[in-house]
């Protein structure tokens, strides 16, 4: 069968095709968006990129809370009573069509005067007049064209975050000074004694001095601060020799020009700071559209509907108290633990546990915060406040306040400790030697050693290697928070996986049939009955079964929470729970669907998790070097299945609560294990924070992932081993570039110790060593990246 894809969203239109203007759409939602665009002459949207859209979601009443003044205040950055400016985060922004349509919002509604997209951050900044328009209308308009903004409790608390641009300013200052100082040093490079230079050299020198002032006291201040902090905690970090180098360069140069000893080293000084900042800037590559610090707040809604004396009122989530009656609509989230009062609850806990299957609840059942209602409206009574709910309590654990980078010594700092001691000893030995030989040169040699040994090249190796590797990983859909995560990843020796949603895939599951064989006509009837049902299990089973002819059913009835019943000609079929079809209830750990025809029980379909592609291959590759553990919150239903799939050495532990996972990792860390945790749901958040490296696996990186050190796209799961080994190779590259920079240092030290360091030698050696390190690490990591791509 030929596949037809939706003109708007690109999805498969296998179930029902809607055609309009010779274009096919997968659903009415997509068609409506197309109609809106064509009515407003915005079909250019489809020319820029094929099928760029998203299916608009049902949002009836979801954004009623946006009409409250205090909530509007939190979102708008400008409000003068006539015009408001609001910035909204839209996860769907992904292509040039998105930018185009969102910047043409004014054509859809004249009240919107301008809108601007920031593609990197996936935000749109909308200016609109509030005379006949409001924030709520903007959000509804965006949702109606498939660009639903993502509004969470997180937006409510934090307010406006200041953008930190100091690194760009510092880089600008250093670059500006470096260029000018280079210019001004040229005359003295080429003409040492001459009438002309004698007359004007002081002007050049003092100008260079003036340019170097902001470099030392503004652009380079972080190095002094960091060195001071390091020394105070008795740590010789890499910034200690750098700060020493900068200070000595500046003081010696100033003294030299003050007493007319020479030109000083202002060129090397400014160049050094410029290159160091360049390295910092390069490493600072962050994924602005991803957040690695998310907790439950970025997932929870800002407001829910509260029922007071039969009236519906939007209420802030933090104001919910025990005993409040709440109304939860379809696709809305349950913000607090509570008891179901009425309505058909089908709760999807996939964000919490990773389990893709929704669970049915009867009135009187307990509902846990974090679940999403998936069928119709329900009413519930809160029994706890937001912070005290079962799930949110996890965040009160100390782990979430700890900074992982503390207590981890980076490779650079390990080297720098020995390096600093070595340099200082060389400086003192050389000075002592010169004190006896030619005391006038002693001070000169001492400072020269500190200048030339300033570990610019060493300090640049790690930023450039890791910075480049972060970029390469990012292209391969493995988003790492920062460079130190890569270093920790290379040191890992234990890998712990969550089960549901991590090693199992959300999208497909497989089912086994047990019982009396179904006849061909029964199978046709089964398939056709499932076709009419919207229950997730029916849909899954429908997709698994073979294709059959389409027949018209005489009778079809869906019993919520029980099953479906249908008849065709004289055959009747019942599909659903054991009690519904009249089978004896068997206590199975797995999800089952039972079938009976004409009141005769036939058999049951048992669903199994389907594991991600390449899972056993990955585990077999990893088992040689790492201890592997599966830590699951589920029951032992899958134990036998997993045993077959995975290497025998793998530890399988079930029934783990979120706290248990955290404690398990903590315990193994005290025994010396370096733990890599891979999880996906909010229930893994504690474990991800406790582990040395926590990777969140995500089907869609834009949507949601708990706080972690890195986010891995689910489709790349089977390449995990490659990413770890690439980090290991990166450590090797850094070690090699250390060797390279030591060679430069030895050459430089020869000049310094023998007392013949000229400014021009320093000015050549410093950039040369830095640039060759940059070139070496870039080429080496690109080579690594090419190997990864294969």
């Amino acid at each position: 069968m030929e596949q037809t894809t939706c003109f708007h969203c690109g999805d498969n239109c296998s179930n029902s095709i809607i055609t309009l203007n010779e274009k096919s759409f997968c659903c009415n939602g997509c068609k409506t968006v197309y109609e809106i665009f064509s009515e407003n002459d915005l079909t250019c949207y489809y020319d820029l990129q094929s099928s760029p859209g998203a299916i608009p979601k049902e949002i009836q009443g979801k954004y009623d809370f946006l009409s409250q003044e205090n909530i509007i205040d939190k979102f708008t950055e400008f409000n003068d009573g006539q015009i408001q400016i609001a910035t909204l985060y839209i996860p769907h922004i992904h292509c040039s069509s998105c930018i185009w349509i969102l910047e043409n919002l004014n054509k859809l509604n004249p009240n919107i005067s301008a809108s601007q997209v920031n593609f990197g951050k996936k935000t749109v900044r909308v200016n609109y007049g509030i005379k006949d328009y409001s924030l709520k209308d903007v959000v509804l308009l965006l949702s109606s064209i498939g660009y639903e903004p993502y509004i969470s409790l997180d937006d409510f608390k934090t307010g406006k975050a200041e953008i930190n641009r100091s690194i760009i300013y510092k880089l600008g200052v250093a670059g500006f000074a470096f260029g000018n100082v280079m210019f001004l040093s040229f005359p003295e490079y080429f003409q040492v004694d001459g009438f002309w230079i004698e007359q004007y050299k002081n002007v050049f020198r003092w100008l260079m001095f003036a340019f170097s002032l902001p470099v030392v006291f503004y652009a380079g201040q972080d190095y002094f601060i960091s060195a001071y902090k390091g020394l105070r905690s008795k740590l010789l970090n890499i910034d200690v020799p750098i700060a020493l180098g900068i200070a000595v360069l500046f003081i010696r140069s100033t003294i030299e020009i003050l007493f007319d000893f020479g030109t000083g080293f202002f060129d090397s000084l400014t160049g050094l700071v410029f290159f160091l900042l360049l390295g910092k800037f390069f490493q600072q590559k962050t994924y602005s559209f991803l957040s690695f610090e998310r907790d439950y707040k970025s997932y929870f809604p800002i407001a829910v509907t509260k029922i007071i004396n039969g009236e519906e009122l939007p209420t802030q989530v933090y104001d919910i108290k025990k005993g409040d009656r709440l109304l939860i609509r379809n696709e809305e989230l349950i913000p607090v633990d509570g008891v179901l009062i009425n309505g058909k609850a089908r709760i999807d806990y996939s964000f919490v546990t990773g389990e893709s299957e929704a669970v049915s609840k009867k009135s009187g059942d307990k509902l846990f915060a974090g679940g999403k209602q998936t069928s119709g409206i329900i009413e519930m009574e809160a029994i706890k406040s937001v912070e005290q709910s079962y799930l949110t309590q996890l965040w009160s654990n100390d782990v979430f306040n700890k900074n992982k980078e503390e207590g981890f010594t980076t490779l650079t700092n390990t080297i720098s400790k020995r390096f600093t001691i070595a340099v200082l000893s060389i400086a003192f030995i050389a000075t002592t030697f010169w004190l006896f030989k030619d005391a006038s040169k002693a001070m000169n040699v001492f400072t020269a050693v500190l200048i030339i040994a300033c570990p610019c090249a060493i300090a640049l190796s790690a930023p450039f290697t890791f910075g480049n590797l972060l970029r390469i990983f990012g292209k391969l859909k493995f988003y790492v928070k920062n460079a130190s995560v890569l270093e920790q990843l290379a040191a890992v020796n234990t890998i712990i996986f969550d089960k549901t949603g991590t090693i199992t895939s959300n999208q497909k599951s497989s089912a086994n049939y047990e019982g009396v064989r179904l006849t061909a006509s029964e199978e046709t009837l089964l398939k056709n009955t499932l076709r009419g049902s919207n229950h997730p299990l029916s849909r899954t089973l429908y997709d698994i079964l073979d294709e059959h002819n389409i027949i018209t059913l005489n009778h079809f009835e869906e019993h919520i929470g029980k099953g479906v019943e249908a008849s065709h000609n004289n055959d009747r079929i019942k599909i659903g729970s054991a009690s519904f079809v009249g089978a004896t209830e068997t206590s199975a750990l797995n999800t089952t669907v039972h079938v009976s025809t004409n009141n005769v029980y036939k058999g049951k379909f048992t669903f199994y998790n389907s594991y991600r592609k390449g899972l056993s291959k990955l585990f077999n590759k990893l088992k040689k070097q790492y201890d592997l553990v599966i830590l699951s919150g589920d029951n032992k239903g899958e134990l036998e299945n997993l045993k077959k799939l995975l290497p025998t050495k793998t530890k399988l532990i079930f029934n783990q609560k979120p706290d248990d996972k955290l404690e398990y990792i903590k315990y193994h860390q005290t025994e010396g294990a370096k733990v890599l945790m891979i999880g996906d749901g909010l229930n893994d958040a504690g474990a991800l924070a406790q582990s040395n490296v926590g990777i969140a696996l995500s089907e869609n990186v834009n949507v949601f992932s708990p706080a972690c050190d890195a986010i891995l796209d689910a489709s790349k799961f089977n390449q995990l081993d490659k990413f770890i080994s690439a980090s290991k190779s990166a450590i090797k590259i850094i070690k090699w570039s250390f060797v390279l920079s030591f060679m430069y240092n030895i050459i430089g030290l020869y000049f310094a110790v023998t007392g013949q360091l000229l400014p021009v030698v320093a000015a050549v050696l410093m950039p040369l060593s830095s640039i060759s390190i940059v070139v070496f690490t870039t080429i080496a990591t690109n080579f690594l990246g090419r190997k990864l791509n294969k």
Partner: protein
Amino acid sequence: MSVIYMLLSISVIVAIVFFVAFIYAVKKGQFDDSYTPSVRMLFEDEIIKEKSNKKKLSTNQKNKF
């Protein structure tokens, strides 16, 4: 007064002008988003085309929102 002083002061002033322009640009947020403007500048032509079409097609069109 030698010409060198004049040349030096001119060169420094020019450098400072560019430096101030850079600081101003950073402050205005021009370096915050380095990707979107590169895409946005390519739209210009299409919008003009849109407008000329629009005049013909939708003179009495009402907005839905």
